[in-house]
């Protein structure tokens, strides 16, 4: 799964994030205080603005402290009842209708049908629930304010913060119920939608290899063939000499096979449903570095001219390698005799070579301290497929054992070698190694990947190779995917309710919708502001809306410089201000893309607790100031009234 920005680790993320949040919060408070003061001064200059401001400020803070859970609960329940009264359950019907007609559009014959199905159900849920919340939040408070029914609530001994929190909580409960229903319906839909099987014609199976003598003295021959095609794919079918059948992995899945015998002794094979498609792999990622063709450590590999610079490439039949350094590895984390390593690398050929097979590569393990390196196995690459290799804990089969030094260029230009001294030669002549004793040092080990064929290249990024620490339940992972949608929903509810405290219905609707859309395009906004929209261009290109408009009219591309006229200089100056504003907005808008966990679920990777915690804390980080801001806005209206 391509992960273009590093996933944050909660333990290292929390303190800097908290620091930034507190600073931002302080800044926001100061700004709000200043704006509030100004507002009071302007509107109530002759009517005791000081008292008004004091009442707003002190009363507002007291409200925040003296909050009542019981009243919040009651208001939340009221919100839930009203929402149900507004027939929010219709959205579930729309979702079900979508699922019913989804079969017209979802192609099970595609190369990754599970991704299509999962993206569809999660994507549809995402949009439906978020839009529902946009409408619900937009129509609730402003209509109360407009119809003045809000005063019936305000006259009760209810604090404004309790109204805000109650509404937020109420909407969260409604959204959670709807999401929960959708989650329960999605699972069987996906599983049923992907279910298929294949036929095997026993007569078409052919012998594979020479006859083998079995334990009971008889001889038998292994068989091979193909299953019948279903959904534009088929599997290689094998029966070993003992009569045990299996099918190969194809399109990310395989089928369990059962052997049946008829009354006249005829053997037939029945394939079950697909397995291996709906998974939740638990990856352990390492740190990636590169070695160039002369053996020198470099930050990045070669570019082969691919527009997407996610992957760097290493040259084949040279010393070039991709090096993943793993840390905190413990033997008990990997039950069994082997450690599974999975990879999904890119391939680039400068000449056709033998197109009947993939490019050969080799997997090596290295001790980072003493440089002991063994070449474990040679594999055939397969692009856009996850290749699973096993590193045995007891290494007996290896092509070579040697001492490999890392070479790095120091600041003064000299080459530094690591380790400086060669390993004990006796170590190189052993027939057997223990992975954790001989290669893992304080939990740290290096896994190297090399391309073996001259003129060919392997492309790799950090998440392209990982150690698979087992799998979690797909059902649970799907739940986490919905949790991601839930978090987006919570943030949007926060914005919707806050905006509704001082805007009318239509403006709240459009504004909340705007927050949602901007949040979905958050990464794009950041790229425009930082000039990282075209990462392949060396100098970041940062241009605002006016310059972009000028370029559109003049048909000038991003690579050409505009003529330096007065008009263009003015436009660029204005753009700097607009970009500043856009930067500010980008910092405020919630990163809805980052909160979404759909890709993890559809690609089949478990969502880690760390990531969930980071996202949850992020959501809380938005919600708290939103509630406070919303409380003060509503209080100001109350006080004004």
């Amino acid at each position, binding site marked *: 799964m391509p992960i273009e920005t590093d996933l944050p680790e909660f333990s290292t993320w929390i303190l800097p994030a908290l620091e930034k949040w507190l600073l931002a919060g302080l800044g926001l408070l100061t700004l709000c205080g200043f704006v509030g003061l100004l507002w009071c001064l302007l509107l109530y200059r002759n009517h005791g603005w000081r008292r008004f401001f004091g009442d707003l400020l002190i009363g507002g803070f007291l409200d925040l402290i003296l909050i009542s859970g019981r009243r919040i609960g009651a208001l939340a329940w009221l919100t839930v009842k009203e929402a149900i009264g507004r027939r929010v359950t219709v959205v579930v019907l729309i979702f079900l209708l979508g699922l019913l007609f989804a079969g017209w559009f979802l192609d099970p014959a*595609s*190369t990754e049908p599970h991704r299509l199905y999962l*993206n569809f159900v999660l994507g549809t849920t995402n949009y439906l629930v978020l839009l529902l919340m946009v409408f619900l939040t937009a129509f609730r408070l402003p209509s109360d304010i407009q119809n003045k029914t809000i005063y019936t609530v305000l006259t009760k001994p209810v604090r404004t913060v309790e109204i805000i929190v109650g509404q937020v909580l109420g909407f969260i409960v409604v959204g959670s119920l709807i999401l929960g229903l959708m989650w329960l319906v999605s699972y069987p839909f996906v599983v049923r939608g992907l279910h298929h099987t294949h036929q095997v014609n026993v007569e078409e199976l052919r012998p594979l290899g020479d006859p083998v003598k079995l334990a009971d003295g008889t001889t038998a021959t292994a068989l091979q063939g193909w299953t019948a*095609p279903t959904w534009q794919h088929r599997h290689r079918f094998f029966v070993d000499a003992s009569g045990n059948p299996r099918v190969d992995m194809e399109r990310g899945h395989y089928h369990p096979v059962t052997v049946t015998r008829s009354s006249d002794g005829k053997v037939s094979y029945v394939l079950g449903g697909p397995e291996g498609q709906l998974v939740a792999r638990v990856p352990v990622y390492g740190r990636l570095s590169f070695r160039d063709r002369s053996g020198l450590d470099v930050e990045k590999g070669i570019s082969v001219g691919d527009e997407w610079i996610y992957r760097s490439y290493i040259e084949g039949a040279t010393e070039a390698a991709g090096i993943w350094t793993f840390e905190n590895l413990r033997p008990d984390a990997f039950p069994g005799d082997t450690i599974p390593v999975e990879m999904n690398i890119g391939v680039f050929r400068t000449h*056709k070579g033998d197109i009947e097979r993939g490019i050969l590569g080799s997997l090596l393990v290295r001790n980072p301290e003493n440089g002991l390196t063994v070449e474990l196995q040679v594999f055939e690459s397969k*692009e856009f497929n996850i290749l699973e290799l096993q590193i045995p804990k007891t290494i007996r089969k290896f092509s070579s054992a040697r001492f490999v030094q890392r070479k790095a260029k120091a600041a003064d230009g000299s080459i530094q070698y690591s380790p400086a001294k060669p390993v004990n030669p006796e170590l190189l002549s052993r027939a057997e190694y223990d992975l954790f004793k001989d290669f893992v040092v304080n939990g740290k080990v290096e896994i190297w990947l090399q391309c073996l064929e001259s003129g060919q290249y392997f492309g790799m990024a950090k998440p392209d190779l990982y150690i698979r620490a087992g799998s979690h339940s797909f059902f649970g992972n799907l739940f986490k995917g919905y949790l991601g949608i839930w978090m987006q929903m919570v943030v949007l509810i926060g914005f919707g309710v806050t905006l509704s405290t001082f805007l009318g219905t239509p403006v709240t609707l459009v504004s909340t919708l705007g927050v949602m859309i901007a949040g979905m395009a958050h990464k794009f906004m950041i790229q425009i502001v930082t000039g990282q929209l075209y990462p392949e261009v060396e100098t970041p290109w940062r241009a605002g809306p006016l310059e972009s408009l000028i370029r559109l009219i003049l048909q000038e591309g991003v690579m050409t410089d505009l003529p330096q006229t007065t008009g263009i200089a003015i436009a660029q100056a204005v753009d700097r201000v607009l970009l500043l504003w856009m930067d500010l907005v980008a910092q405020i808008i919630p990163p809805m893309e980052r909160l979404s966990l759909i890709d993890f679920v559809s690609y089949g990777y478990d969502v880690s607790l760390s990531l969930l915690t980071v996202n949850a804390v992020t959501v809380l980080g938005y919600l708290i100031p939103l509630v406070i801001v919303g409380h003060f806005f509503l209080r100001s209206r109350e006080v004004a009234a």
Partner: protein
Amino acid sequence: MTSRQQFIRKIIYLVIMAVLLGVLAYLGTPAAPSRDPQKASPGGVLAQVREKEGLTPTQLGQLDPGGEAIKLATLGMRGVAVHILWMKAEDYKRRKDWSHLSATLEQMVKLEPHFITVWRHQGWNLSYNVSVEFDDYRERFRWVIRGINFLKEGIRYNEREPILYGDVGWFYSQKIGRADESKQFRRMFMDPTDPFDIHGGRPPRDNWLVGKDWYAEAERLVDQGAILRTTPLIFHSHRPMCQMNYSEAIEKEGTFGDAAITAWQTAWHEFVNEFGHRELPSGFDDVPIIRLYEQETLYNQAQELAQKIEELEPGLREKLLEERRQELTPEERAAYDTPEYDRTVRQAELAFGADIKMKLTHEQVARRISDPKKRRQGLELARKAMALERQANIIAHNRNIVNYDYWKRHAEVEEQPEAVAARELMYKSEQAYYNNDHVTAMELFLAAAKKWREVIEKNPDIQYEDHTINDLTEFVDRYMKILDQLDAVFPEDFALQDIIRRRVRRRPEYQAAQDKLASAQKAIAQKDLTAARGDLEDAIKQYRGMMEFIKCLKLLADRATLSDMMAAVEAYDSVLAQVGDVFPRNFELAELIRLQCLHTSELRTIKRHMTQADYMLMQGTGPQQVAAARQELEQALPLAANLLKKFPHLMRLSDRRTVTELLELDLRYRQILAKLGETVPQDYPLQEFRQKVLPVIEKEMSEQEGQSQPQSTPSAPSPDKQA
């Protein structure tokens, strides 16, 4: 405003609304079809125009309720939605997210099912751009088929778009049949289990024939009046070309005999009788419609009229031609008189200019008729003849675009049993080579060359065509691999030498070499040996360069060219003899001389005798063994003398490896004589050779040693290293 005024205003508004509604109804009432014709309504003006022009949704293709629903759901922002989807598709393609790309394309076409460009562009995108992103050829093939299926989906909604059918035909035929992986693609296409569900349960057919069927369907639509959005000439040539390519493909894969002959006959028939006879727009206003087959007929008719002009004043044309001929320079005349395919590059340039000067129109002839009445007649005939020629020229121009003449002739030749037999022999020769049976491969290759000679004799015109020359050159170059394996050269009577010779004469290097040779001869005559040497070295360099383009010359494929090159070597030898120098160490044609020497019986026998002598001495160094070794070497000595007579330039070290071998022979003989206590006889055949060559070799070796003293000595090339 009073209430009365308000009322009147409302009435006016109502009247305007009624009038506008009426206009709207007249223009935009939808058609109301019904089983009962009396109840059916044709609808408003727009509905009737749509019906007439075939633009109603049901006439365009199948209806898609899902697509219509999605279009409605965009609330009028369909264009924006498509824009966003297109951007997303490009992003998914860039990030190699193929599942999302496919899904996005599906969404895109739901919104714009009748926009043909979307189907064509994205179909091409899938089959050509996305497929090559995969390393595994099986995945590439899968995506090629996806692109084809995508187009077929487009045809469902646009049943009267022949360009879509044509694109499907192109993808089936060209993408599968011409890709780098065509061998693998065709194999998968013809897989009887049909894992990609291409053939819909029917037995698999060749991809070229499947493509041809799609083109046929496209042509049927065009013939029924559907709009063709591309050039008709090229469009209609695709179908017969599929048959041509099919015929070539099956021969390449080993199908010959009646099947191949029938395939080529079908190709000829479809190309000439069907495509050639089809009415096509010419692209010229004065001759709007043409038929490609008519060119010869029109030219003949024009010739008949020209003959009639000639009869008005016999001999006038020849007289006028002779006048023009006199205006040519002698070189132009010689070039003009040389047959076109025998011209050198220089001659071709001169002949082009001469053609322009010699051009004589019918009108120009008619104007020179002395009798006024006959002149008027002649001018009328000339006008008609020129009109016919104009038409024929337009047809010729269109024919050139599709290479009509070549393909017509190609099919005519290929359907002949001799040609099929020649290709079969070529195929078998290649198979033998790949099975490491090089001897059989060579025999079959020579048989194939002889068969091709029969084909050329039956169809002499084909030997002048570039395509034939290129085809046969490729064939000859493949034979080189076989010769290489067997350490052999082309036989002296190789059947296709004239083809190679023709190719040689067209090379600019050959022309340049001949010019330098001529210049060197002049310099020799003027005793300017320095200039002669320089010219000869340039000429030899040009020959060397030419051999890089026509590699088979390195294995003596054309003896005539070899003679030209050896003539240059001999001239160079004579100049070196006069200036008292030897051939340079990196002499450009040393390898060629070496190859010739290696394939002489003399050098082969010399080597055998030397090996035998060594063997004798390995048995022991007693008098018997030494005498036997001496005998062996003495048998080799006259052969060495013969070799030096055949290649006298060896005396000036034209090929150092052969020279080193002969010196080796001399050295061993002297060693044996020394052992026996004897001296070299007076009539020793290698005396002069030794006296001339040994000092030079010794000097060169000491120079080499001196250069290599401070560093590690580079290994000198072994005398036994093959060319």
